[in-house]
């Protein structure tokens, strides 16, 4: 074969090789670009996660801070708490408004918001003047020893001069304890 055709053939081979090599590199560039985009997206996602997590953590820290007054309260065994609450409902508290407390159903356990024992009560009381009722309600509902959740309250004018009040409350006694104290919170940077 003449040298000129050999040169031509070599040229074609070299150009083919360069073209194939170039196409492979082009593919590699595209793959790298794709990876780069995915990587950028991942970084963006992580940044967004970080912002969300920071916000979430801040909310939780605020929640934790708001719990400081209650951390040392502590709750004993729900059964003991229930008995204590019954002690709390002593005649001295109830007598002034002729209050009657009725247990509604038996205690139940519920999971949310925390595992707790729920006991429902119906409190009926009579009063002539608002300050009598308010004194009673303050002592019953605005104390910080027994976790009560008010479901409803009604006040109806009855025959005669008395007025009758009726409150439906749940005593929510935690089944587990929040094992944290102020030192723990300090350790967590709160």
């Amino acid at each position, binding site marked *: 074969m003449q040298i000129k055709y050999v040169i031509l053939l070599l040229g074609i081979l070299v150009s083919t090789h360069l073209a194939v090599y170039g196409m492979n590199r082009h593919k590699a560039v595209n793959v*790298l670009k794709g990876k*780069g985009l995915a*990587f950028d997206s991942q970084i963006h996602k992580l940044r967004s996660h970080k912002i969300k997590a920071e916000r979430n*953590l801040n909310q939780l820290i605020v929640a934790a801070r708001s*719990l400081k007054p209650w951390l040392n309260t502590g709750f004993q065994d729900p059964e003991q708490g229930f008995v204590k609450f019954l002690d709390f409902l002593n005649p001295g508290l109830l007598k002034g408004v002729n209050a009657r407390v009725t247990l509604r159903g038996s205690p139940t356990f519920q999971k949310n918001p*925390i595992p707790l024992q729920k006991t429902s009560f119906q409190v009926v009381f009579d009063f002539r003047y*608002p300050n009598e009722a308010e004194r009673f309600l303050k002592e019953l509902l605005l104390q910080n020893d027994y976790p009560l959740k008010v479901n409803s309250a009604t*006040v109806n004018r009855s025959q005669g001069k008395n007025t009758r009040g009726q409150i439906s409350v749940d005593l929510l006694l935690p089944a587990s304890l929040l094992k944290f104290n102020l030192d723990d919170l300090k350790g967590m940077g709160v």
Partner: protein
Amino acid sequence: MAQKLLSVIRQRDSIRGIFVEKKGGGYFAGSSLDLSSKEALNSACSSADEIYISDSFLSAVYVLDLFPKVAPKHLPQLLLQDALAKFQASGDPNIGFQILGEVQTEGVRQREIAYMAVEEEEIKQLWAQFKKYEKKIKGITSLPASLAGTVAKFESLESNFVVTWIGETESIISIASQDGIIKVARNLPFGLEGVEFNDQDTMRAFSRKIDKELTRTINFFKQGFREPEPEKIYLFGSRHLQSIFELSPLSIPGANYFFQFTSQLISNYSQEDETENFHIVSSLFQNKNFNFLPHKVIADRKSKKLLYPSYAVLAVVILCLFFWNFQLRTQIREEDFTLREGYPIAMKLKGEVEALEVKISKFERFREWKVFYDQTFNDKLAWDRILSAFGRTTPPDIVLDSLSINPGGKSNWLAHVSGKIRAASWEIGLEQIREYGAKIDNLELFIVKTVNYAPQNLEENTKYFNFNLLLELNKMEQ
């Protein structure tokens, strides 16, 4: 530096050549060289840059005729068939042709074509002598064709002309068109050999001989082509020709005789030199259409013509591909660098997010406990002030029948209040309920949402009108 062109003429076994250089628009030639010996030919060809050859080609046939219009690829075959019919020699002819134009005859379009056919064997013989220098050889043609072509190129012609070259042992008479296309050509086997230029008898005898041949040739031309006799007759070959034909003039009617070119052909030649060497230098000006280079050489040159652009294209392609690859390499590096640069950022962010999530998992329990404490201890209504607030703001003419407090849908508390207004008319009652509502709304504990006033028992003297209030209760501030 000007190229050295070697113009060669071969007549039987004799080869003569002249080196010509083209400088500043003019041709400068050396003296005539005898290249008949192998050594002399090799020496001359080796030092030349380009070689142009004319040969007597005694077998050559010149045809100018009309041919059917066929596709270009079939034309050589058509002409070969025509040449074979006219060719006297035994071997296949080589053909060079030129299409002169198209003619419409009796409604049929035909092509006017001039072709020249030369016996293959003659070309082979010539080529055997010059093959060694095939790269330098630019053209091979017949002597009549190069003579006529040169005259047509340098002289101002308006019609057919005759060019006659008279050598020592042979002569050529050819009649050509104004473009230099041979119509008739004859090789005469005699020349000036034997003519004594101081003997008028031999000169007259030679003149008569040439006159006779010229007359025959012109008559043949007139019969063959039905055209008038040419007016211009050029006579070259020897500086003595003019004196011979002045002593014994030629008898062609109406003809003008020229023994030299109107303008100088070779710048450094005298008129005598030009006349004597005209046939040698005429090889340079041959018509390219009648080039009898071997087919293989022409094919090789054509392939080279294609090959070199192919090389160029390939080189450009390779160069472009090389730069493309280089560019891609840079791109890959950049992308890789970006990825490597981003990697620690991503890792750092990942670590930070993980650390935050660990913290969040520790704090997560506070969320549930917060809900619990909000429900039980935190979000409390001012139970110790609600009733007294109503007591303070409720006028004697308004009696409250019931108060019902229930959680609203949006973690708020709603109070439904129902009662009666004692008033003289429902309009007065309406005014009273308005005032009462405004008073309640001014208290920090309540926001009045709706008021429903429904007058009843309008015919009684003392009238009681029912009303309902819907209040939103504000929570106690801790």
